[in-house]
């Protein structure tokens, strides 16, 4: 059967190339959609995990860093640093803002930091040094055409871009980084409200432990000493962000994935039908020679399987190409399908839609009359 299928595929190389391209494009599309989903989920924990520290302190009841408004009392830092086993507690403030330029608006997440929790993955320039310095992610720079050293305005306060990072994005929202000096000046000079205490001054504390300190014991001590706070291991807080993202975006992405799989079934069904239709005469000859419908149907299923297996790496290559284009043109999004789960899910999905799709032409074969071979 392998010989028969291979000969049929090699007999019309252009048609086979077309078939492979169509199937590869379908696989590529499915992979890209899955990759978008994985990319968004993969971006989410970065907000927490890139801040460092052994423990992260939030306002009591706040279980996320993303999409949450955490406010800690000013004295919390001093109280936490007095606890045995705590080496230092670094302050971190998160501010949601909207950056507008040339008619386009982008929500941004400004992270105000002091001694830790600042920008990672700087690809150009430096971390903020002066109060007017700001580090922005390249996704924001790409959307608004921003360059290093350029002056930008946020809430009527002028910053200078001192650095550009990569990969500091989550929930379609790029991050920006300023120092506390910058934040105080921003609050004072932008003069948007009379009372500076209205603004969040301390959102989180990133706690470094002394070598050998018992993490769980210190966490319990912090919660006992500062009842207004909750303490998390960064991994847990990151997992919470990821869970929130899944809850929000999961249904829509699952729906899009389901639609893409239906498209996959249809495309493969169409291609295999076209392939069988084009070979009706030769299939009629085989039937006249005594090949059963079952055997010929099996050959079609086998052909679909071979086409899908051969097309899969091409589909992956196409998806890699799209991922590279997305990375260059729209760094707000990440297309990631390198994790085994995504690849396995897609491969299994492709196997299913190859089988389901080839059932359509199998019916054509079952109805095929051997007499067709004698017609002109």
């Amino acid at each position, binding site marked *: 059967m392998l010989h028969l299928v291979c000969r049929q595929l090699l007999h019309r190389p252009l048609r086979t190339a077309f078939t492979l391209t169509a199937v590869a494009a379908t696989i590529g599309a499915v992979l890209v959609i899955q990759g978008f989903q994985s990319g968004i989920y993969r971006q989410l924990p970065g907000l927490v995990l890139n801040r460092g520290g052994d423990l992260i302190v939030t306002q009591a*009841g706040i279980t996320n860093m993303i999409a949450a408004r955490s406010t800690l009392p000013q004295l919390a830092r001093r109280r936490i640093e007095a606890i045995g086993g705590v080496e230092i507690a670094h302050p971190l403030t998160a501010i949601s803002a909207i950056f507008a330029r040339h008619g386009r608006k982008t929500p941004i997440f400004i992270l105000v930091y002091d001694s830790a929790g600042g920008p990672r993955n700087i690809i150009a320039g430096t971390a903020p040094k002066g109060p007017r310095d700001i580090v922005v992610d390249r996704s924001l720079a790409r959307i608004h055409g921003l360059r290093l050293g350029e002056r930008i305005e946020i809430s009527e306060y002028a910053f200078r871009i001192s650095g550009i990072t990569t990969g500091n994005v989550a929930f379609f929202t790029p991050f920006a980084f300023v120092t506390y000096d910058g934040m105080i000046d921003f609050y004072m000079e932008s003069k948007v409200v*009379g009372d500076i205490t209205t603004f969040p001054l301390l959102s989180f504390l990133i706690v470094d432990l002394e070598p050998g300190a018992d993490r769980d014991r210190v966490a319990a001590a912090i919660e006992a000493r500062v009842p207004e706070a909750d303490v998390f291991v960064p991994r847990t807080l990151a997992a919470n962000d990821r869970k929130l993202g899944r809850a929000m975006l999961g*249904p829509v992405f699952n729906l*899009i994935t389901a639609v893409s799989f239906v498209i996959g079934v249809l495309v493969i069904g169409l291609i295999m039908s076209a392939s069988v239709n084009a070979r009706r005469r030769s299939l009629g000859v085989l039937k006249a020679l005594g090949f059963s419908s079952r055997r010929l149907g099996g050959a079609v299923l086998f052909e679909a399987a071979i086409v899908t297996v051969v097309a899969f790496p091409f589909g992956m290559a196409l998806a890699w190409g*799209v991922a590279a284009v997305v990375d260059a043109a729209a760094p707000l999004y990440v297309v990631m399908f390198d994790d085994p789960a995504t690849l396995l899910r897609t491969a299994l999905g492709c196997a299913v839609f190859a089988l389901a799709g080839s059932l359509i032409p199998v019916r054509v074969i079952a109805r095929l009359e051997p007499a067709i071979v004698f017609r002109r």
Partner: protein
Amino acid sequence: MLHWTLRTLFARPAYLLASACGVAFALMLVIFIEAVFAGESGRIVNYLQKTKGDVWVMQRGVSNLHMATSFVSDWKVARIAEVEGVRKATPILYMNASIEIGGRQWFSFVVGMGEGEGRAGPWRVVKGKRRPGKGEVVIPATLARITGLDIGATITLNTKKLKVVGLSAGTFSMANSVTFAHADDLSDVMSAFGMISYVLVDAETGVDPRILAARIRDRIDKVNAVPLEDFIASDREMAMQMGVEIINIMSLIGMGLAIVITGFTVYSQTSRRRRELAVAKALGVRNRAVYGSVLLQAMCIALLGLAIATALAYAGAPLIEALVPLVALTIEPEVPLRLGVLALVIAAVASLIPARQVLRVDPATAFHG
């Protein structure tokens, strides 16, 4: 030649339909992604649309409700109410938060309403109270259905436990569900005492909201005032802009798939009719005419695919919304029109390979046995 083209195309209607369906599903991917963003953008501005109001006042430098943070000193509400042309000024506190409902975290925008103030509250309540008192909350009915909660259940906003006293309709969204709480509870959570977030202004009859907004900006220090229409447009535009790249990329992917499917179909049709093409060429039909025929076939498939995609999308959207209530789908009327242009591009590109095949057909083969 036109007759031959159409006869060839419709010779196997099932095959034509299958090809058009392939194109349709590729285009549906584009329509679907756009519909998701448009649907969600529509839900995002639902609160503004339903609460109406003529002008919204907020912190200077802010011009959005969605994803924005705004603080205005509460004494300014009285000043705003005194501005000529203002009938009523309703303050609200507003914050985005992750709320624990039914054991899961949900992202929501929380509106804090003053005691006895229903102006900025839910516009339709399907069960329970419309105005939450202290320690109470009104949540979207959809969210209650998903989480299996009902009146009397407890939700957690930060550490504050709030009792569900009402279920509102039209307030659910994946990115922007609206929860209504008492302003005192919210100011506790936000530690925002003496502050409000936005002021909803109702104008006196006959007052132009634009003129009123300008007057408020002029008279009240450090605030921005925006007519409702502009405020809605600003939020909707920002939400759509957040997804514009993803839409463009999915459009390219859908277009690529549609090109391959159309090209494959036309190529298959042309392959089957090589002898007929040879005869036509032997009879003096020029290559240009034959290529025109191939292009016409491709256009018919692409446009038929678009028609099927549009019909399926309009028919399927309510069904999907019923099955997956978390997802809102809105198909903007201009999308099928825009995809019509895309379909023509698809047809032109898809016919290139079959066209090469046509040009290579040797008229002499018509006389071979």
